[in-house]
C-alpha cells in the first residue's frame, strides 16, 4: 500500500532533474531531497524566472500550475545541511497535471535585499501569492502591478510571519485605539477606485462603485468585493480578502505538533476532520509512521462524511443564492443525520479534531454501522428529489448555465482545483491520481462536466455526494480489524498498553504527552482532495517539538482570485451565482 501512496516515482523525477541539470548547468545552487520525494531545486534569483519559465513551457512534462508560492524565514533554523546560505527562502511549488508530478523551486535571499522578479506573466495566479508573501515576509516582487498587503490591514506594522514578529497578544503592548489612530484606520479603509485599478468614468458614462461586503448576505463570510458597475453590468469586480485572517500559519509555529491538530479543523470549517488529514499525514511522513489499515479506513469514512456535509451546505446555499429558499432546509436534515453519526463517533460535530499523529483518537463505538446503514438507505432518494427540485429547475438553469464559465487551461492558470477544475472536463481527482490513506482500495467514479459554468460546478458536486456515499458504504462493509493507532514511538498520545511494563515506553509516553513529540528535521508537502479542492500542508521541521514553518495551501484562496476574470460583463445577480458556485469559506481563504 505504501508503494501506491504517492511518492513521485524516482524515475520521473530523475528524468526531470536531468533536463533541468542540462539546461541550467552550473546555475543550480543545490538539489535538496525531501521525504515526500518532490524534486527540489535551489537557484539564484537571477536564474529563477528562466528556470520557472523552462519548467512551465519546455520540460516534459510541463508544469501547468503554480500550485503554491510562499517563503520561509530561515534565520533561526537549524539542521539545514546541504542547503545554500539563505535568510529568507522563496518556495515555488509547481504542479504538472499532464505528468502527474510536482517540483519545488527554492530561491535564497538575504534580509538586506529581499527582492526577486515577479512571475505573474507565467502564471496569473502568482499575483495574490506574491502579495501574500510580501505581506507576511516583506519580500518584494519586482514588476508586480499592485504589491499591496492582501491579508493584513494596510496600516499593519511589520510582516507577521517573520520570526521577530510576535505570535501572541501577550508578547505585544495591550491593544488600544486612540481617536487619531481610529481616524487613520478609517481613512485607510476608504475606497479609492484608482488604488484598485479602476477608472471613475468611461467615455460616455460615470461608473457606480458598489461595495459588496465585507458584510453582505451572499458573500459567505466576511469577504468584500469592490464592484465597478455600468448600470447593473459589471465592468470589474475586485475581491478584497483578509477579514477572516487569524494567523493560522503563525500559530503552527508555536503549537506543538500534536496541539496544532484542532486548529486545522477551523481552516475549512465545513471540512471538519478532513482538514486534519493532510496535516497528520505530513507529520507521519516526516516521522516515518505507518498508520494501521483500520485507522486509515476510519479516516476515509469520516472525511467522506464531511465531504457530503460540506457539499450539502454548498448545494443549499447555491439554490438560495439564486433565490430558492427551501432546499437548504431539506438538506440540513441529512446534514443533521451525518453530524449525529459523527458526534456518536467523535463526540463533537463540526470540529471534532479526531485524527491523531499515527491514527485516530479512539476506536469506533459499538453499533457504529447501524446509523450509517440508515443514512445510506435514507439519502439516495432524497438526493434524487433535490435534483428534481434544483438541478432540473428551469429558472435555476437559466440563472446558472453559461454564467461564469472558464476552460481547463484557464483553470490551471489560476490554480483552480477540485470540482471547479473537474467541471471543465479534466478528470483529475487527487484521490484517484495520487491515492492517499488507502483510497486506492475503493471503487468510485470521478464525476466531470464539460462547460465549466456555475451549473456544471454544482452538478459535479452533486454527483460527488453519491460517490462519497459509495465510499462510505465500502468503508462500512470492509472495515479492517486491528489497531486504530500506530505503535510508533512518535504516535501522539502514545498507546499505553506497554507503558506499564517497560520503562522505555513509559518515558516515551511521558515526553510525548508533556512536551509533545519531537519530529525529525525534514520538509514535506502533503495534499488531499478536500471538499473545495486540493488542500495541502507544507511543513518544515528543524527537529523540535513545534513546526518551524507551517504553510497551508488552501483551494479557496486560489479560487477567489479568479472572480474578476469570470464575472466581467455579467450582472450583479450573476456575480452572486458565481460566488455561490465557487464554494468557498473565508476561513479557508484567509487562514
Amino acid at each position, binding site marked *: 500500500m505504501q508503494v501506491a501512496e504517492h511518492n513521485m516515482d524516482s524515475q520521473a523525477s530523475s528524468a526531470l532533474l536531468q533536463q533541468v541539470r542540462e539546461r541550467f548547468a552550473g546555475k543550480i545552487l543545490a538539489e535538496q531531497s525531501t521525504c515526500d520525494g518532490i524534486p527540489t531545486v535551489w537557484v539564484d534569483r537571477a536564474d529563477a524566472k528562466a528556470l520557472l519559465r523552462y519548467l512551465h513551457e519546455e520540460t516534459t512534462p510541463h508544469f501547468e500550475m503554480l500550485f503554491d508560492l510562499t517563503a520561509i524565514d530561515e534565520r533561526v533554523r537549524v539542521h539545514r545541511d546541504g542547503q545554500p546560505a539563505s535568510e529568507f527562502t522563496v518556495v515555488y511549488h509547481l504542479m504538472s497535471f499532464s505528468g502527474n508530478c510536482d517540483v519545488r523551486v527554492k530561491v535564497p535571499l538575504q534580509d538586506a535585499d529581499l527582492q526577486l522578479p515577479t512571475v505573474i506573466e507565467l502564471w496569473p495566479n502568482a499575483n495574490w501569492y506574491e502579495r501574500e508573501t510580501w505581506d507576511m515576509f516583506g519580500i518584494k516582487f519586482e514588476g508586480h502591478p499592485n504589491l499591496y498587503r492582501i491579508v493584513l490591514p494596510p496600516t499593519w506594522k511589520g510582516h507577521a510571519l517573520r520570526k521577530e514578529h510576535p505570535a501572541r497578544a501577550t508578547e505585544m503592548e495591550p491593544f488600544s485605539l486612540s481617536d487619531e489612530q481610529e481616524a487613520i484606520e478609517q481613512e485607510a479603509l476608504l475606497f479609492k477606485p484608482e488604488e484598485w485599478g479602476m477608472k471613475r468614468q468611461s467615455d460616455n458614462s460615470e461608473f*457606480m*462603485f*458598489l*461595495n459588496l461586503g465585507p458584510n*453582505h*448576505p*451572499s458573500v459567505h463570510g466576511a469577504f468584500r468585493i469592490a464592484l465597478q458597475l455600468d448600470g*447593473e453590468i459589471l465592468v470589474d469586480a475586485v475581491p478584497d480578502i483578509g477579514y477572516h485572517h487569524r494567523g493560522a500559519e503563525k500559530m503552527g509555529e508555536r503549537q506543538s505538533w500534536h496541539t496544532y491538530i484542532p486548529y486545522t479543523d477551523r481552516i475549512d470549517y465545513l471540512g471538519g476532520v478532513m482538514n486534519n488529514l493532510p496535516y497528520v499525514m505530513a507529520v507521519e511522513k516526516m516521522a516515518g509512521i505507518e498508520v494501521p489499515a483500520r485507522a486509515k479506513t476510519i479516516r476515509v469514512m469520516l472525511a467522506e462524511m464531511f465531504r457530503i456535509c460540506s457539499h450539502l451546505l454548498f448545494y443549499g446555499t447555491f*439554490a*438560495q*443564492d*439564486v*433565490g*430558492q*429558499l*427551501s432546499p437548504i*432546509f*431539506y438538506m440540513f*436534515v441529512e446534514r443533521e443525520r451525518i453530524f449525529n453519526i459523527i458526534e456518536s463517533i467523535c463526540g463533537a460535530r463540526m470540529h471534532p479534531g479526531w485524527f491523531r499523529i499515527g491514527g485516530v483518537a479512539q476506536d469506533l463505538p459499538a453499533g457504529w454501522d447501524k446509523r450509517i446503514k440508515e443514512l445510506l438507505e435514507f439519502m439516495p432518494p432524497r438526493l434524487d428529489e433535490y435534483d428534481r427540485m434544483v438541478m432540473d*429547475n428551469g*429558472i*435555476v438553469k*437559466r*440563472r446558472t448555465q453559461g454564467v461564469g464559465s472558464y476552460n481547463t487551461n484557464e483553470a490551471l492558470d489560476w490554480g483552480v482545483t477540485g470540482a471547479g477544475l473537474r467541471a471543465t472536463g479534466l478528470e483529475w481527482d487527487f484521490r484517484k491520481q495520487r491515492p492517499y490513506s488507502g483510497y486506492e482500495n475503493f471503487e468510485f467514479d470521478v464525476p466531470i462536466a464539460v462547460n465549466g459554468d456555475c451549473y456544471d460546478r454544482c452538478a459535479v458536486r452533486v454527483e460527488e455526494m453519491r460517490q462519497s456515499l459509495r465510499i462510505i458504504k465500502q468503508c462500512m462493509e470492509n472495515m479492517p480489524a486491528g489497531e486504530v493507532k500506530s505503535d510508533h514511538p512518535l504516535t501522539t498520545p502514545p498507546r499505553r498498553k506497554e507503558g506499564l511494563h517497560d520503562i522505555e515506553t513509559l518515558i516515551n509516553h511521558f515526553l510525548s504527552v508533556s512536551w509533545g513529540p519531537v519530529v525529525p528535521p525534514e520538509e514535506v508537502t502533503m495534499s488531499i482532495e478536500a471538499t473545495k479542492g486540493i488542500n495541502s500542508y507544507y511543513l518544515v521541521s528543524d527537529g523540535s517539538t513545534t513546526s518551524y514553518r507551517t504553510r497551508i495551501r488552501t483551494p479557496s484562496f486560489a479560487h477567489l482570485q479568479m472572480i474578476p476574470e469570470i464575472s466581467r460583463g455579467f*450582472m*450583479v*445577480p*450573476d456575480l*452572486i451565482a458565481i460566488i455561490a458556485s465557487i464554494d468557498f469559506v473565508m476561513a479557508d481563504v484567509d487562514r
Partner: protein
Amino acid sequence: MTLEIGSALTIGLILGTVIGVAAMLIWVERRLLGFWQDRLGPNRVGPFGLFQVVADMIKIFTKEDWTPPFADKFSFVLAPAIIMTVILLSFAVVPFAPNLGIVDSNIGVLFVLAMASLGAYSVMLGGLSSDNKYALLGSLRAAAQMVSYEVFMGISLLGVVALSGSFNLREIVLAQEDMWYVLPQFVGFVIFLIAGVAESHRLPFDIPEAEQEICAGYHTEYSGMKFGMFFVGEYLGLVLISSLITVLFFGGWYGPAFLPPVFWFAIKAFAFIAFFILLRAAIPRPRYDQLMSYGWLFLLPLSLINLLVTGAIILNSQ
C-alpha cells in the same frame, strides 16, 4: 355615476380587518413556510405562536426609528406612507359580500390600477431618498418591473371587463353568478396572477429587494415603524391581489349556501394568499433582465392575443 360611501362603521370594520389580516400574515407566512420547509416556524408565543404577531408589533414599534442623516428627509418619510395609503385606498372598491363594501364605483377596476401605479412611487421614492447604492439599484429595478407589469396587468383584466361589460367590481362579481370568469378567461387569470406577484414584489419576483443580491433593495436604510409600513404594505398588497383575483376570476362571494357569502370570499382569498406563500417556498428568482424580457416578449403578446380572442368571441356571439 353614483358614489355611495359606506358608513363610518363599515369603513372602520373593513380597515381594521384588512390591517389585522395583513399583520396576521406575518405569522401565517412563517408558519406555512415552516410547514413546507420541514421545520416549525414561530410556535413559542401564545397558542401555536399566534401572539408572535403581537411580539413583532411591540418590537417594531419600540425599535429605534432611524432616519439616515444623508437621506432626503421628506420623501424618506413619505415613501412608506404612500404604499400603505394607496393599497388601503384600493380596498375601498373591493366588494367583499353582497352588502359589504365601501364604494360601488363605476371605475373600480381603473381605480385599482391607478392606485397600483401610485404604489410604484413609494418604492422609487424610498430607494432614491435613501441615498444608498443598494437602495438605488432596488428602486431602479422596482420602477422598471412595476411599470412593465402594470401594462400586462391592465390588459389581462380587459377580457373580464369585456365579458361583464362593466368596470364596476361589484357588477363583475354579479356577472359571475353562473360561471366564474376563470374558465373563459383562464389565460387572463394566469397573466393577472403573474403580474400580481410582480406588483407585490414577492418571490420569485422580489427583484427590487432581492436580499441575496442587493441586501434589502429599496428599503435597505429603513428601520423601525417605517420599515414596518413597507413590510405590512407588502402583506396588504398580497391580500389585495388575492382579493382581486377572487373578485375578478373566482366569483367573489359566490359559493354554496351553507356558508355566508363573506366566508366564501375569505376562503378563496386565503387560498390565493397561501398559494403566493407556496410560490415563495418553491421557486427561484429569475434575473432582472430575464424577468423583463419574459414580460415584454411573452406575457404582453399573450395578453393581447387573449384580449383579441375574447373580443372576437363576444362580437361573434352578439
